[in-house]
């Protein structure tokens, strides 16, 4: 079994006659030698669901094996709203806080995620994400509003577009255990320079959420920065007055008057709503795939990550999800939040975050501060939320003074 004659024959064929392969004897087919289990290992490494779909067409054997794949990545091409939003687009309601955050995908209205070849890419919808009244009741922040505040997407010519929902695409994958879905972009469009990242996990309702934000993130020219620079300008809310850095790690008084605090509340609420909307969208997929053990919904911008592990998926199947009255997202329970702030921190690698803020959130019913922070996991759920260099940012921020807040269900 030294030299394989079929191998050399194959090599000659590749140069010329494809026809010989179409009528080739089965014995020539090296691929047949690979057992099904091995083929599945290979398919599980392909990941991309479209590539797997094409594999189904390759041969009968592939067609039978592809649905047995247990690990799939779905890259969503675009997101469209179910119906155009009505009055919720108006930013003038006095009682609801207005976001300085532009939502790119209208997640409070979205009921369908779309795959497929889109002729004209969907433009940013410019929808203001106006969070439902939270207990805070802050007046509208002074941050600027985007001019294209009405929803105006370029109309899709009906015939040119094929829409396929992830549910449809995943339908044949009955053995799916690990699913990752990647949205084309983060839902929250930021004003220039603002950095916002969130990570949330859900069972039937929110498990925990960690948010890291900064009013600006830039590369530092100097390497002399320490993690609590004393004279760095903060640039909060567009202001240029420097925040004094309190060495105790406390938030300076000006933070409350220059809109910095309100801004952070808005970031928090927007992130939670984005997470809740994603969670809501996943219901049909989770219902269809009983063997799912892990589910991640990320976006190409690296803005938000929603994860569900095996226990959480199980919980969701058993305990029904409460939806908010907006009806396109999951209801948030009462929340306990902890916040840390630093006017300026410099990360390894030279990234400088101004007005850096860390918010850690858990449902209030999980217990008081003592139980949450002193349990077996300690602060791990916060520390592990983000990859480097943000992980270091979290570590630095956790050393600052802790502020706790409560938020009603919304």
């Amino acid at each position, binding site marked *: *079994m*030294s*030299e*394989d004659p*079929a*191998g050399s024959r*194959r*090599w000659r064929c*590749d140069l010329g006659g*494809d026809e010989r*392969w*179409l009528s*080739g004897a*089965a014995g*020539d*087919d*090296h*691929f047949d*030698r*690979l*057992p099904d289990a*091995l083929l599945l*290992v*290979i*398919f599980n*490494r*392909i*990941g*991309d*669901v*479209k*590539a*797997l*779909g*094409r*594999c*189904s*067409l*390759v*041969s*009968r054997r*592939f*067609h039978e094996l592809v649905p047995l794949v247990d690990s799939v990545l779905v890259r969503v091409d675009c997101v469209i709203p179910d119906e155009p939003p009505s009055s919720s687009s108006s930013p003038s309601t006095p009682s609801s806080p207005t976001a300085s955050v532009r939502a790119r995908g209208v997640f409070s209205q979205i009921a369908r995620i779309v*795959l*497929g070849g889109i002729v004209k890419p969907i433009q940013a919808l410019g929808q203001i994400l106006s969070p439902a009244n939270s207990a805070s009741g802050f007046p509208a922040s002074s941050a600027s509003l985007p001019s294209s505040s009405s929803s105006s997407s370029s109309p899709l010519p009906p015939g040119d577009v*094929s829409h*396929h929902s992830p549910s*449809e*695409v995943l339908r*044949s994958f009955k053995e799916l255990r690990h699913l990752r879905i990647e949205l084309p972009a983060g839902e929250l469009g930021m004003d220039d320079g603002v950095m916002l990242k969130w990570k949330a996990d859900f069972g039937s309702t929110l498990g925990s959420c960690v948010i890291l934000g900064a009013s600006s993130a830039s590369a530092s020219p100097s390497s002399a920065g320490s993690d609590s620079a004393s004279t760095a300008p903060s640039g909060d809310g567009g202001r240029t007055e420097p925040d004094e850095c309190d060495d105790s790690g406390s938030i300076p008084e000006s933070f409350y008057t220059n809109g910095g605090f309100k801004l952070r509340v808005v970031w928090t609420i927007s992130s939670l709503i984005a997470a809740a909307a994603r969670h809501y969208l996943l219901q049909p997929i989770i219902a269809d795939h009983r063997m799912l053990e892990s589910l991640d919904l990320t976006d190409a911008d690296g803005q938000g990550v929603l994860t569900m592990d095996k226990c959480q998926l199980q919980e969701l199947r058993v305990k029904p999800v409460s939806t908010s009255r907006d009806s396109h997202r999951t209801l948030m329970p009462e929340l306990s939040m902890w916040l840390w702030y630093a006017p300026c921190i410099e990360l390894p690698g030279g990234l400088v975050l101004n007005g850096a803020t860390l918010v850690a959130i858990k449902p209030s019913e999980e217990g008081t501060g003592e139980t949450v922070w002193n349990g077996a996991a300690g602060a791990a759920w916060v520390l592990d939320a983000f990859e480097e260099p943000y992980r270091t940012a979290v570590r630095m921020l956790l050393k600052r003074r802790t502020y706790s807040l409560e938020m009603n269900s919304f």
Partner: protein
Amino acid sequence: MAAAADSSGDGGTSSGEKTIVLVSSDNSARFEVREAAALLSQTVRRMIDEAGADASGDGITLPDVDAKTLAKVLEYCNKHAPASSSSSAAEAAPPAEGEEDLERFDREFVRVDMGTLYSLVTAASYLKIEGLLNLTCQTIADMIKGKTPEQIRKTLGITSEFTPEEEDEVRRENAWAF
């Protein structure tokens, strides 16, 4: 960190490190390799454990791996073997070479014809060499990604037994993939 030459190995390098002899399926080739390299294979590890101390007398025959493939597999193992050959540390110890060096090696290693690649993936699976299995499977997976079904067939050397009607139907089912 040097290997303790504790057991009665049949051979040894000049440094006294234990070696193992592996024999191809047709008995045509015998390869003497460092124990650390051979133990990258869980199958070999198990065979040694089961056979006991006198296993290394004649060398270990691998019934499912031919000489040419075994030579190539051992090339991989030698490169990826940890510096220490103490069996418990072998899995945890990092390989003696640097990361980048290994990555370059791996990339070159899989630049082979399809027949050899299939033999490698089959051997890696049989021998249970995790790194090699991952490498070869990922290589084939990468060959599949981004190709049309026809291109996949051509690259992997597969014939489709679909009738035109069947093919149409499957294509409709999977319209979203195109």
